């Protein structure tokens, strides 16, 4: 059985393994032991903190195979971004250049380095071992975070973003980086990306363009990938859109991947899950009433979430699941049904 729970200090080796196989593709998951230690530490400190208003807390969760004990995925949420160190995006904006006399009307898109997402919450890490990359597991890893937000809304900002990785070519080079960032950094994409993870983008203010960059001055390849997710992230983008996220013209300053945003309380998996009292017993005999659902406890430090089949009308969980969720008869649990369509 796969179980999602907060990171703890015993996870360092498992986490390192995940960082290594992710191959540096995630800025938030660099293969750097100090930094990974920070992820654990940050999560534990955040969970212990008595939060009244979202601050610089950060929560990371792992997906554990309860039989083997191995970690097969990691996901995270930042309570807010941009507070302890600046959070940059490019906003794409159209500038109109018009001349009445010449009857010319041009709309020129330009990229503005901005910090518009300062103070919003962020879904910040999502990596799953390729072997276990099934729709159900991906939903569990990603949406269990949203259940956590639903349970602890005071811990998160009222807007939520998620960044999708941008397009890179077969040599892992980003055409956007080659056409723009490179001129300002004089280092390669991988190195810049790595530094970003380590330094939380703090150094970017010193190096990046302060003035808007006119899109027509970029290479055609770079223009083509603005706001486009990496092809294998298309399904994640759809998942986010189904959750109510939308793309509003903000892109990543390194690879031009789109940033998706939503009102936190309007996100479907946050708005639509419900809390019930746990009833422990055998599942209903009529199998046709059973549906795949995310089930979590309402804990903080001991937050647990998993996927199981359940009758949403008469939700009853098995003793095994109750134990994994650390709940007893009558304790509150959260349930959200997964539609078959979503699970493909």
């Amino acid at each position, binding site marked *: 059985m796969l179980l999602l729970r907060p990171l703890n200090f015993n996870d360092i080796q498992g986490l390192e393994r995940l960082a290594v196989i992710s191959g540096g593709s995630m800025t938030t998951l660099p293969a750097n032991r100090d930094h990974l230690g920070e992820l654990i530490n940050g999560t534990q400190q955040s969970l212990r903190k008595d939060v009244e208003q979202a601050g610089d807390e950060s929560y990371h969760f792992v997906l554990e195979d309860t039989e083997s004990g191995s970690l097969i995925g990691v996901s995270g949420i930042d309570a807010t971004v941009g507070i302890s160190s600046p959070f940059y995006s490019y906003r794409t904006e159209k*500038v109109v*250049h*018009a*001349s009445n*006399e*010449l009857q*010319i009307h*041009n709309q*020129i898109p*330009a990229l503005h380095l901005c910090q518009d997402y300062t103070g919003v919450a962020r879904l910040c890490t999502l990596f799953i071992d390729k072997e276990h990359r099934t729709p159900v597991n991906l939903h569990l890893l990603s949406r269990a975070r949203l259940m956590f937000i639903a349970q602890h809304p005071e811990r998160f900002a009222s807007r939520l973003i998620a960044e999708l990785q941008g397009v890179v070519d077969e040599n892992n080079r980003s055409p956007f980086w080659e*056409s*723009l960032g490179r*001129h*300002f*950094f*004089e*280092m390669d994409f991988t190195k810049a990306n790595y*530094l970003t993870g380590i*330094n939380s983008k703090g*150094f970017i203010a*010193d*190096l*990046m*363009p302060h*003035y*808007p*960059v*006119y899109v*027509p*001055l*970029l290479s055609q390849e770079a223009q083509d990938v603005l706001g486009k997710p990496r092809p294998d992230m298309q399904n994640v983008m759809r998942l986010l859109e189904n959750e109510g996220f939308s793309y509003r013209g903000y892109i990543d300053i390194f690879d031009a991947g789109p940033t998706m945003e939503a009102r936190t309380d309007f996100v479907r998996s946050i708005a639509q899950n419900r809390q019930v009292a746990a009833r422990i017993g055998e599942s209903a005999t009529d199998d046709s009433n059973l549906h795949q659902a995310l089930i979590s406890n309402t804990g903080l430090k001991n937050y647990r979430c998993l996927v199981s089949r359940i009758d949403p009308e008469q939700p009853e969980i098995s003793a095994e699941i109750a134990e994994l969720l650390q709940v007893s008869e009558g304790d509150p649990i959260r349930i959200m049904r997964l539609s078959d369509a979503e699970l493909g």
Partner: protein
Amino acid sequence: MMVVRLIQADDHEALRELARKTGPGFTSLQDNDEQVAAKLSSALQTFDPETRPEDALYLFVMEDTETGEVVGISGIEAAVGLNDPWYNYRVGTLVHASRELEVYNQLHTLTITNDHTGYSELCTLFLAPDARHSKHGSLLSKSRFMFMAEFSHLFNEHLIAEMRGYSDENGISPFWEGLGRHFFSLDFSEADKLSSMDKVFIAELMPKNTIYTNLLPEDAQQAIGQTHQNTTPARKLLENEGMRYTGYVDIFDGGPTLVARTDDIRAIQDSHYVKARIDEHPPEGELYLVSSNDFKDFRCCMTALTSVGKHVVTLTPDVAEALNITEGSTVRVVPLSSGRRF
């Protein structure tokens, strides 16, 4: 003997004739009836008492005193940018550095400015091809400084001159191709033609935000502040007088604007008054500009001179006649060219 004087109403035919010789590169005096008439009209309007001093255009012609033929033209705008804005790109430096990363990166930027608003401008210099010898070009250009020295109250304390920007053998401007083109739906030749008539529309369409030059194609970057080959001699002449490229370029072709404090122009600073003696056989000397002091009848010639005593020079009768002066008149003189003393 060549003499430079202010243009007059009856120079219309001569001006029209001169305009036929300019050719397509010369946008400020084209082979075009309307443009010629307009030019002459605004030059004559300068002397209308209703005209504000800052709207004045001083237009000079160079006349061959033997034939009466007009062989060249030059001008000064008293002030630019006071009616329609006067645009330039300004080349700036930005350093992006991070101590933590030990990265140091020097960048250049182009920012649109109207910094030269109110400055006086040297404009419209054209010398007929068959008169291009015997330093006539220097006389035609520098006589303007003699006028400015004499009537300095009519001019701004700063002076500019725009130099035509680089274009390749096909007339293509890499600066335009790399930057302006993206913001227009016009091709270069069309935009070029329009720009000669009215530059404001270019500014309306050009990017208002600062441009990082490192995002431009290499050849566009190279063209920033580069003078067109044909204009290089004119640039050298003005640089010898103390005008400098200070990072302002044309928004259209990237050509440099030369700037100086008017008082610092060599010919203005070093020119001074002397009394004229008239003699058939003056002593030989180096080439000087000599000008009269009258406003509407301003004249300027070039002649070899040496000073007699401290404040007297000897001029030949034909020079005196060309300047319309008599024995004992005060004239302004300055060596035609600077010679740095060491």
